[in-house]
């Protein structure tokens, strides 16, 4: 039986001798942050889930023109999206490599990998901004079609989450700088990496959605009952 159910079946009105108590384990700051991160991921997950659901619902109205499918639509050729995605994949990979280095107490390599992660994240953000610019130059303005609106909105919200991640990483780096010990950063860095991987996953979903043909979107919408 899973633990929550066991917990809910306890009979607290029965008194127990103190040695039988399940004492709460000693908890450190990282464990608290880990719990908080899980909730943050849940909140961010719900946020994007709702955006995606509304995207599918909105796609079923006649004025919706998907950004992929027809040859003249910008995301029929996904090479540019893949280029941007590769930056984020590299950022995520560098972050993971940073953790492994920190666990092996290799300070310079850790700093190098984390810096690379920051670099690729910033590169991804600039690449996304440039994609905005390209689309608007092609006449795909934010309010000309709901699919365009969603593209700008989803990429902006996703980008802002990455910026939030960079701020937290910066705070962590400044704290570690003061401590001057790379092992101290390993655990909190793991939390940052989880957040990065999660945002990479979110971006892959958004990518798939934005680059889907009208037929695929219609099929997805039908599955959701729209």
């Amino acid at each position: 039986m899973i633990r929550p159910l066991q917990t809910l079946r306890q009979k607290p009105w029965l008194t127990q001798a103190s040695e039988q108590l399940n004492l709460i384990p000693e908890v450190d700051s990282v464990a608290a942050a880990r719990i908080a991160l899980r909730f943050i991921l849940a909140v961010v997950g719900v946020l994007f889930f709702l955006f995606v659901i509304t995207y599918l619902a909105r796609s079923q109205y006649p004025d919706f023109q998907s950004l992929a499918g027809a040859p003249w639509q910008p995301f029929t050729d996904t090479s540019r999206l893949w280029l941007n995605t590769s930056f984020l994949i590299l950022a995520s990979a560098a972050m993971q490599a940073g953790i492994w280095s920190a666990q092996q107490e290799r300070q310079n390599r850790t700093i190098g990998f984390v810096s690379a992660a920051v670099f690729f994240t910033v590169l991804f953000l600039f690449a996304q901004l440039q994609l905005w610019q390209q689309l608007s130059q092609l006449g795909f303005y934010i309010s000309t079609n709901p699919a365009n609106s969603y593209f700008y909105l989803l990429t902006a919200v996703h980008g802002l989450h990455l910026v939030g991640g960079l701020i937290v990483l910066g705070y962590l780096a400044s704290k570690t700088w003061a401590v001057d010990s790379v092992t101290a950063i390993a655990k909190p860095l793991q939390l940052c990496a989880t957040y990065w991987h999660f945002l990479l996953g979110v971006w892959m979903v958004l990518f798939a959605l934005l680059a889907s043909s009208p037929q695929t979107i219609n099929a997805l919408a039908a599955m959701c009952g729209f």
Partner: protein
Amino acid sequence: MQHTAIADQIDTMHDPDTFITKYVWSQDHKVIAIQYGLTAVFVGLVALVLSALMRLQLGFPDSFDFIDPNSYLQFVTMHGMIMVIYLLTALLLGGFGNYLIPLMIGARDMVFPYMNMLSYWTYLLSVIVLLASFFVPGGPTGAGWTLYPPQAILQGTPGYDWGIILMLASLAIFIIAFTMGGLNYVTTVLQARTHGMTLMRMPLTIWGIFTATVLGLLAFPALLVSAIMMMLDKVIGTSFFMPALVSMGESLDYTGGSPVLFQHLFWFFGHPEVYIVALPAFGMVSDVLATHARKNIFGYRMMVWAIVAIGGLSFVVWAHHMYVSGMHPAFGFFFATTTLIIAVPTAIKVYNWVLTLWRGNIHFTVPMLFAIGFIFTFTHGGLTGLFLGNVTIDLPLSDTYFVVAHFHMVMGVSPIMVLFAAIYHWYPLITGRMFSDTLGKAHFWFTFLGTYAIYLPMHYIGVLGVPRRYFAMGDTDFIPESAQTLNASITISALIVGLSQLIFLYNIFWSLRYGEKAAHNPWGATSLEWQTKDVPPHHGNWGDKLPQVYRWAYDFSVPGAKEDFIPQNHPVSPEEHTAGEAS
């Protein structure tokens, strides 16, 4: 390093030593709670005045020049939004959540005190942005608290220009504030409980606040999504929700968005919001009832299960607010069924409260009066909810005063009754003083009888078919003259209830200075917050050592015990342990 919130040694907790760090930029959960509480009460009083203004118009139409149709709609909108979000949610979770969580679970503070402080100041910013809308051209939005597009952002609706923008911005800021606070509450409950405080030993107050916070964290994103998308529709001209339409004889640029989509999003947040408000109230009222009836809460485990079940079910009932929206009729069947199912755990809770009182040693203290009052108002509000949950009954009653009366009873009056019970119950702990019992009882009877004088006739005029949101009825054949007489009576009752809140305010502020000094644990409560060394508790709450918990929070009137309550941190005697095994 062990986390400061649960460390035995408090060397790492720097006592705030200046006025600024102690009372303004404070990271102490108790001070933040009071900051949240005072701000929420202030903005709630603004909303109370707005309701008095709208009642004046309804009770005595054509008598007040300063209320025109536009300002009437603005009063309605701002009253609703402030009460639901900025008063109830903020006071129950930001106020009581902050004050009680660390104290009731035996922690020194929240696990992220700095973020907790940020949460309050962000909340204050959201309130300032909201209130600023009273002072911009066009005034605040008058779109109704549900802010339905397309009318919310179209010319013709009051505040369609700046008012709605500030409202949406304020909501977004509030959600950021709530998320920061909410992350703290759930993490603190899960990570910072003291030794022996298992989840099933937590008082129901904490279960209520914890579950409501989880609901809030998962439901507020829906409001954020709808606020962002509507803001873009308004400011940039996107068409997420705005259909292609002609306004004031002019064809607009919107290309065919879906207003119903907004309604789904709004109510995906809006219905859990009812329980975000109700669950902490359920928890607190359970603790007040048990303490003042000197009896263990009836069916503790079932109460916890019911809280969790209600929390889960609250996410699958939202479209019962949308039976008349034009959604697919099959949805009505599904959502009516889930709505009726959610009544089951809710009814279990009501039975358990009543059974807690059954053969208890009931002390009619002020908190107890409000708690019992809550059982009445909540049962009445809940039962009319069963009417409205059925599609066939909802259709004729939709958008009438029956709905207004229902939701005011169930999520207006009821949580407010609990809030008063809670304020009176924990006042001695928070301030170290007792309030005036006589004034408290006067406040109760004015409020309790007054709300019935308001809402019972309101159900009736709803059944007559009087529509809500109308500035004036005019000549409407199917509404008898007598409905207007009832409306005048409701208004007079509302004004009396509104004014009687001055008794409460006077009592609270007078007692701060002149109230009798509170004894340690004056109600004989078992939960940890009353077992602190100092009253009110000092920074760090517990002195050098954290409390050790040995039992649940409801050991009242235990046979053979010296007193009629045994605090949670009281060790278990060998005899008691043997008796426990035998049972």
